[in-house]
């Protein structure tokens, strides 16, 4: 009965957070254990009383300030100094910029929108096919959740109760493999279709691009260095990055006025509260299903099908590709982790880090696959083309990423080696 309630609410377009909370309420009702209602509101609060979640608003803030303060643009410009003149140079830059930024801002789709507007016209100007330009932007969005910093990893870390810094480490090797795979796709397409020749900056242009980019490089240094050197927690390094982004955007680039800050914080509050509230609802949902020992029952069913961790992950992958057709990545992550992770750990001995990498990449992939790929539609809309046109260039990327996903599912060491 309750799974039906869940599906009906979900498909009726009730907000995902409320679907979770209402299903939990329905579960309690059906189980007759109505004393749980007394703890319901308190449990909703308790689910977000968590230090790790502070990383969500702070990473979003850092991303907002970087975009507002002109840092993103200057980082891209500096990258052009090094590869802009190569054939397909701009395509690689688009990919790299997306990889870094998309997951900072929390919503891969929002970042695809920003980057498509910025990069697609530039690429078209140099003679790239518009569909291909949009496809590269979208493919960058695929890598973003895996290469740290990543909002998805932050959220998974909180849900799985594992250190977020370690989760970031787990993403490094898979991220490099992914980047390599995607670069190979771009190179192959370039080889087959022939890319337009890029243009090198003149020496003075290059010097100024590099000089202007210097302050902006402080931000990746603050985030990555802070975490890896252990000077700061991921949450703290995001706060430091926000401060740097603000100071550089205001005092050095002079594109960010302090008066614009309130708007930035307001947007951050709106976006962060949306995600964190979903987590609050997922928490009561997870609590109720644990009370009803549901993961044990589901586990008994799945373990009767297979006892092999790889086969289990394959089943999860196929299942998640369907889920990814319906629901945006982070919402799906919040929805499914409480159910699937306990099974993966207890019955298949899968490391939570390995599981997190596989699930996050899978859900990112779902964002771009038809029939419902929000990322695909946004990339198309923002670059004023149609999804079919984008998909024509995108499918080799999807295939490559799917292959990497299989590889990562098969070899856990790729995710756990650096931890």
């Amino acid at each position, binding site marked *: 009965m309750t799974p039906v309630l869940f599906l009906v609410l979900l498909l009726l377009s009730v907000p995902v957070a409320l679907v979770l909370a209402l299903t939990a309420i329905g579960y309690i009702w059906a189980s007759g*254990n109505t*004393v749980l209602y*007394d*703890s319901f509101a308190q449990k909703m609060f308790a689910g977000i009383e968590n*230090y790790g979640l502070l990383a969500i608003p702070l990473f979003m803030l850092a991303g907002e300030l970087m975009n507002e303060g002109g840092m993103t643009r200057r980082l891209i410009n500096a990258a052009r100094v090094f590869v802009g003149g190569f054939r397909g140079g701009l395509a690689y830059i688009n990919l790299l910029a997306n990889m870094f930024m998309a997951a900072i801002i929390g919503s891969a789709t929002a970042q695809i929108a920003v980057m498509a507007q910025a990069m697609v016209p530039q690429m078209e100007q140099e003679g790239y096919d518009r569909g291909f330009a949009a496809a590269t932007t979208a493919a960058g969005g695929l890598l973003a959740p895996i290469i740290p910093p990543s909002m998805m990893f932050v959220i998974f870390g909180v849900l799985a109760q594992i*250190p977020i810094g370690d989760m970031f480490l787990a993403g490094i090797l898979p991220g490099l493999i992914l980047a390599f795979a995607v670069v190979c796709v771009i190179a192959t397409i370039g080889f087959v279709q022939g890319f337009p020749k890029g243009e090198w900056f003149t020496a003075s242009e290059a010097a100024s691009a590099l000089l202007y980019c210097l302050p902006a490089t402080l931000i990746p240094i603050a985030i990555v260095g802070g975490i890896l050197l*252990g000077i700061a*927690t991921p949450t703290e390094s995001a706060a430091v990055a926000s401060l740097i982004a603000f100071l550089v955007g205001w005092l050095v680039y002079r594109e960010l006025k302090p008066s614009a800050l309130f708007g930035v914080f307001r947007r951050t509050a709106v976006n962060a509260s949306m995600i964190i509230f979903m987590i609050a609802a997922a928490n009561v949902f997870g609590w109720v299903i*644990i009370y009803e020992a549901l993961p044990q029952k589901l586990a008994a069913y799945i373990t009767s099908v297979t006892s092999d961790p790889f086969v289990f992950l394959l089943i999860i992958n196929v299942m998640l590709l369907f889920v990814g057709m319906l629901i945006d990545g982070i919402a799906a992550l919040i929805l499914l982790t409480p159910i699937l992770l306990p099974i993966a750990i207890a019955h298949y001995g899968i490391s939570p880090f390995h599981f997190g990498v596989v699930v996050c990449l899978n859900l990112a992939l779902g964002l771009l696959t038809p029939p419902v790929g929000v990322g695909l539609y946004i990339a198309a809309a923002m670059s004023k083309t149609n999804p079919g046109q984008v998909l024509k260039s995108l499918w080799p990327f999807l295939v490559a990423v799917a292959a990497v996903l299989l590889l990562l599912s098969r070899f856990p060491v790729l995710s756990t080696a650096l931890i």
Partner: protein
Amino acid sequence: ANDFRLGLITPPPHIWTKAAQSFAEDLAEESGGAHSVTVFPASQLGNEAEMLQQLQTGALDMAFMTVAEVSNRAPDLGAFYAPFLAQDVGHAGRILRSDVAKDLLEQLPGKVGAVGTAFGMGGLRQIVSRGEVNSVQDLAGSKTRITPFAPILDFYNAIGAAPTPMPLPDVYDALANGQVDAIDMDAELIWALKYYEHADTILQSDHMMFPMVGLVSGRVWADLSEEDRTMIAELMARHVDSTIDTYVEAEPVWLEDLKGTGKTYKIVDEEFFADAVQKWNEIWSQKSAALDDLRNVSRETAN
């Protein structure tokens, strides 16, 4: 017939969780299958504060919980955390099994909303430090990870350290990368979770005991028959109490293992901490009415 739920924060292989499991098995057997207990380890139902609330509403039936959490609402029990109340883990066991300790359980239904069946035990607290520790001054000003409870906080404040509350999953990294200088921890986890790997000094201070208490929801208790109450109270008490024997046996082995790690290993006593113990006693003789009685028990049961 009831299907009880028992929650606790420790992971499945931990001594407390094992005791909970064998309690579950025994209760099922002794009740002839009428009652069953599902154990929810590793904070699955929430942290201790949340579980305590669930005990109060009756959503959760039973829990094995640190006395620290309970002492938030029943400060008298904070006296168990008096520094150097116990000389060693065996002595701690004798104190926890005393009549004075048992009497403290009686205030739990009124103050906490749960019935306490017996005290159990975690290991004694030790200190692991990244830097050299030659005197207590070396700990002053250092960021020291603690479990955030008033009696522990007061002890480290008295030393002059900067006590930093931090949940267990973050501790290893924090110690590895210098977010904290030292940690307050028990020998079992220092060994099992390899906290010594990123430390220079292991200080066997045995400065505090870390008791546990077996709880049954007051609401659930009210609905049980007299017969069931007796059976549950006796069985739970037996298994909670059994953790004391387990620690008495296992703790010396862990400490021996830690000595073998090649890290600087120092055994220190009450004098090492100078006037910190005195300061702590001044604060807690106000907060807890049980402190003097427990000190007396400590003297009577000392070796």
